[in-house]
């Protein structure tokens, strides 16, 4: 098992990672053009297809996805094991949250991979 110390260290480091990848994300969505334009399907470098087409931006979305998934579900784990203490509860909480986190990561990664592929064909 991973020690609590390591888990919390990763929690803080992913926090810093989100700081960087999140700034890139918010920057591309809000600062490059009016939000409504950036939420369109295609037509500009920062519309969704433009973002996914760019390997660096798509890669940074994947990084954001991984960082946030760990940070958020570890945060929930902390809250839940502070709420109630028993080995069974903690075991259940840890496994259930690991499964949900994995599902979110798999689904999000699917979006990124397929969107990246589709975007290659979009002007």
């Amino acid at each position, binding site marked *: 098992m991973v*020690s*609590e*110390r390591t888990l*919390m*260290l990763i929690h803080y480091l992913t926090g810093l990672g989100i700081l960087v990848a999140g700034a890139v994300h918010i920057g591309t969505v809000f600062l490059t053009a009016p939000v409504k334009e950036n939420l369109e399907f295609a037509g500009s470098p920062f519309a969704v297809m433009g973002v996914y087409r760019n390997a660096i931006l798509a890669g940074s979305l994947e990084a954001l996805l991984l960082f946030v998934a760990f940070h958020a579900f570890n945060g929930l784990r*902390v809250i839940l*094991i*502070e*709420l*109630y*203490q028993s080995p069974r509860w*903690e075991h259940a909480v840890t496994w259930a949250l690991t499964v949900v986190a994995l599902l979110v990561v798999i689904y999000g990664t699917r979006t990124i991979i397929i969107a990246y592929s589709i975007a290659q064909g979009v002007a």
Partner: protein
Amino acid sequence: MSGTSEVLLRVYRYDPSNGGKPRYQNYRVPTFRGMTVLDALIYIKENLDPTLSIRYSCRMASCGSCGMTINGLPRLACFTQISELRSKYILVQPLRNLPIIKDLVADLDEFFNKHKLVKPYLIRRDVEEQENPREQYRQSEEELERYVQFAYCIKCALCYSACPVVSTDKSFPGPQALAQLYRYYIDTRDEAREERIRIVDGAHGIWRCHFADSCSQVCPKGVDPALAIQLMRREMMFGPSKG
């Protein structure tokens, strides 16, 4: 009674031998200049209601036995003047986060057990020296300053009662024990650093502190347990500092 003013004390009453249902009881108490909440409770016990249970000893904020929740905050009854509360109405309850023995008397066993858990004494590797110390241990002023603030603790459990983590996580050692852990850990005379780290490294150990800082807000001795805990976390994340 002209010339004296009065306060109304609303006091938490609980007697396990008497059905065990908590209730509140009101008492009117005449005040005098400099009167503390403890004085008022003693007045009640001597003049109004001898069945009220309270615990106190030193009456000067040194023994740590009169901690209770006064107008919503954990405080020492002997160290809280009626006048500083700026209210004619005072709500007195036992300390939170602890079992209640009777009325205003909280059971401190759990709290003391956690204190003992962190081995609050100097440990020397040399067993003979540990049992029958002979050596003299010199410390510089600077070495003393590292821990002396935390050594002011009187084990009153106010911090323990204020901590939002302790309120739901009973396996968390709490601010007092963790601060004492650091107090011995950082003492240059101590030789049990690894052992001390192991005691609080688990899922319900030091990592559960979220720096809500309520412990430091209520400590009557200025111990600042939250500071000790964060300094301890630094040691554990980055390895022991020199010295």
